[in-house]
């Protein structure tokens, strides 16, 4: 017992500086993430909504009257009773997958092109990076205007070449393609610049050695470029997946509050549960926890996959 105290005291005296310096962050994360998370988990086991949630009106405070309901919210979600979970999950995964693949694929392609010696390279670079500087909500509104069925510029352009106007934001399928296009436009520059940085950190000698050994451009791409990009790629793909899975403003603002719920991803649906109609706080919290669990599982599997690949080499 006393040795434990001694050890704790010694550990404290060597590390107290480090702990003091991380303390503010730990407090912020604890108070603003940890506590709400704990409370969110608790709420997800209750039937809390706007009507039975305790609140303060002027000087009166109304006590909370919601009750503990166990796993009911989760059962409602996972059995598909609430908010057609499985179709929405499928669409969210499709949305994330297609966005990340397009982001990474186009970003890699453009980065490879920009990494060559050529005239006007820095101009292209600036032009291609521009969408990154546009805040997501501005991009969402801009594209919404371009998608306008009667007065949108896209349909006007199509009309010039004799194609009938497309109902970009009406039909559920086209709607999905439309939002993927917006997000791709917005997300490619980040990937492009990150991959470009990664390309420039690959030692040129590796490419030259491969070339002397008679490797074709494709072989050099697969065996030199892609492995060289691995550290950058693994980070940006993980972050990109998490960001896209939780991408709120594009879906929420482009499709709009009235535009039918079929094209909503899990996050926007959960948000709507909490802030529209009868505010279903408990259902929304349960939805959020399910989303978080999905992402956690994904990250652990992804990390494990990377580590196994690393070990196999």
């Amino acid at each position, binding site marked *: 017992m006393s040795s434990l105290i001694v050890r704790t005291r010694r550990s404290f005296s060597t590390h107290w500086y480090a702990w003091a310096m991380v303390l503010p962050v730990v407090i912020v994360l604890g108070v603003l993430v940890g506590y709400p*998370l704990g409370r*969110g988990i608790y709420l997800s086991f209750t039937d809390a909504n706007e009507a039975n949630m305790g609140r303060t009106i002027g000087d009166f405070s109304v006590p909370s009257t919601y009750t503990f309901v166990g796993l009911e919210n989760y059962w409602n979600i996972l059995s598909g009773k609430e908010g057609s979970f499985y179709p929405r999950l499928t669409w969210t995964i499709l949305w994330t997958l297609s966005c990340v693949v397009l982001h990474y694929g186009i970003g890699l392609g453009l980065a490879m092109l920009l990494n060559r010696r050529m005239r006007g390279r820095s101009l292209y670079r600036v032009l291609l990076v521009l969408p990154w500087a*546009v805040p997501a909500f501005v991009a969402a509104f*801009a594209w919404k205007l371009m998608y306008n069925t009667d007065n949108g510029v896209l349909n006007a352009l199509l009309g010039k070449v004799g194609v009938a106007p497309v109902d970009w934001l009406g039909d559920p399928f086209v709607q999905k393609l439309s939002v993927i296009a917006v997000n791709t436009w917005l997300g490619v520059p980040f990937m492009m610049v990150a991959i470009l940085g990664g390309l420039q950190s690959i030692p040129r000698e590796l490419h030259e050695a491969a070339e002397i050994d008679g490797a074709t451009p494709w072989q050099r791409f697969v065996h030199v470029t892609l492995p060289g990009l691995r550290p950058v790629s693994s980070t940006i793909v993980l972050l990109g997946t998490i960001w896209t899975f939780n991408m709120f403003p594009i879906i929420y603002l482009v499709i709009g509050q009235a535009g039918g719920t079929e094209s909503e991803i899990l*996050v926007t649906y959960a948000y709507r549960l909490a802030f529209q109609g009868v505010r279903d706080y408990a259902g*929304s919290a349960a939805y959020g926890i399910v*989303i978080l669990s999905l992402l956690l599982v994904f990250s652990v599997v992804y990390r494990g996959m990377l580590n196994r690949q690393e070990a196999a080499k």
Partner: protein
Amino acid sequence: MTSSTVTGAESAGTTAGARAEETTRPAVRQRGERSRLASAALHTTLICASLVALFPIVFIVLVSLRGENGWTHPMELEGFTLSNYTHLLGKTEFGTWFLNSVVIAGGTMLVGVLIAASAGYAVSRMRFPGHKSLMWTFLICQMFPVAVLIVPLYNILGELRLLDSYGGLIITYCSVSVPFCAWMLKGYFDTIPVEIDESGRVDGLTPFGTFWRLIVPLARPGLAVTMFYTFLTAWSEVAFATSFLSSEGKYTLAVGLQTFVGPHRAEWGLMTASSVLIMLPAGLLFFFAQRHLVAGLTAGGTKG
């Protein structure tokens, strides 16, 4: 930021070198030089990609300059007027929203980066019990969907009477940006030689003194990038702002703009004009920061 400046200088050097070689030996095709056809294909692809990247931005600028109903005829290029801008600045709350956004994003930036920097430094330099799990926590915080925290935060802020206030939104945004900033800054501090810390210790500085007097000035580019990132995150956040702010005088730009194009109104003229005014400062700042942004991000990732 050393890594990015090195690669930048290096690439500039190679292009200049390539050009010099081309002029001296025009007839012989060098190793890696392209045929004329490949060169044309390369430029065509890049021009097409640039057009796609540029089109929505140029389109918005053009529409904003064409008066209240200019958006209904998107293909015409006439009737240019500044009426949208005068209306926006004179008769709407745009100025207030802009200021609100600046206050909230600026507040988040100062508070967030300050505490993220000290944590990032500690994780980068000191091997204390818990530093590994702290890095993991930072990454996991990236995964929090808005839906998990928004209801509890809404209720907590309601109890603290911080709803519909600057302070409430600033502390909310800190929870979003601090983990990422600490993560990025840790990567940046890793690139600063440890010898500098050691010399500070020899001169009798405390660990915090070393951080504050020696490392912070050296890390200024990295800090600038994180500040910029934090600012932009708060500047363009939609979900929290939409649900936490209820009076029009407190709206941020992201919330205010939604009132222009609600379900029953479509004032695209005002919308486009405000989009341009929002893009201008953000774009300018961005232009200077983007190189460093990625260097900091990838440093954090590869060395985590």
